């Protein structure tokens, strides 16, 4: 294990690496633009958006927010433990992080099932087109994040592992990006209108 000290004050070395931060900004701008389009359409078709929003389950949205925030907290703890060379603790926290992600997916599965059962698909109206596109695109990110977490956990526990603290930070940055995107989606989709 290598825990080389990096000067994060250097503009080229933000925590997790410059590439992951470029990805984070691209994702935030993409989701941000989609949400701006969503709000613009919502102001034009207020009644449709208001009635559709009332069909969403805010409680499930809140539960999912708590799951993602909790898993984000454990991810931050995992990075901290890895930096202090506590590999077993870091691995345990990574597993809890992955569990949070899995619970998010399970809740989303129930939410999607109920929507499909009631015939609320992307074809229903423009609100549901945005709802499905944005939440499904976010869900894909969560799935990719889970694969990265499990892979990082596997590689850090290997004998003679070459996993560096920066690798775990990059993995963490991707997972926190899923948090940030959800924090962006939740109030606009579930609470406004």
């Amino acid at each position: 294990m290598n825990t080389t000290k990096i000067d994060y004050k250097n503009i080229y070395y933000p925590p997790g690496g410059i590439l992951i931060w470029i990805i984070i900004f691209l994702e935030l701008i993409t989701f941000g633009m989609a949400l701006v389009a969503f709000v613009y359409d919502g102001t034009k078709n207020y009644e449709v958006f208001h009635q559709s929003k009332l069909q969403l389950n805010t409680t499930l949205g809140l539960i999912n927010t708590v799951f993602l925030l909790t898993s984000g907290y454990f991810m931050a703890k995992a990075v901290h433990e890895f930096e202090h060379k506590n590999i077993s603790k870091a691995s345990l926290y990574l597993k809890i992080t992955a569990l949070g992600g899995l619970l998010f997916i399970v809740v989303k599965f129930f939410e999607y099932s109920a929507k499909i059962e009631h015939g609320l698909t992307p074809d229903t109206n423009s609100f549901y087109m945005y709802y499905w596109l944005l939440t499904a695109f976010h869900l894909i990110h969560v799935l990719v994040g889970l694969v990265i977490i499990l892979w990082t956990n596997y590689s850090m526990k290997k004998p003679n592992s070459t996993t560096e603290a920066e690798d775990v930070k990059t993995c963490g940055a991707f997972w926190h990006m899923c948090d940030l995107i959800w924090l962006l989606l939740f109030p606009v989709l579930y609470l406004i209108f």
Partner: protein
Amino acid sequence: MKISKEYTFIALLALTLVSGFVTTKTTEGKTYVYLILLILWAAKFILVAFEFMELRQANVFWKLTLGFVLALILTIILLLL
């Protein structure tokens, strides 16, 4: 100022609960409610980025860029509402 991860986590949960409470206790179509919700969202966003993602340690360029993106999205949404 360095805030521990535990305090950050508690603050995030509290802000989430306040968002839920504000939504259930208000009627639709009020701009000040949207403003409160978006400010709460911005606070959570900053806490996750600066404390969990350790952006606090990064060069000021990254902090300002994230702040700019956050402010841009927030302002456009508020202007549209």
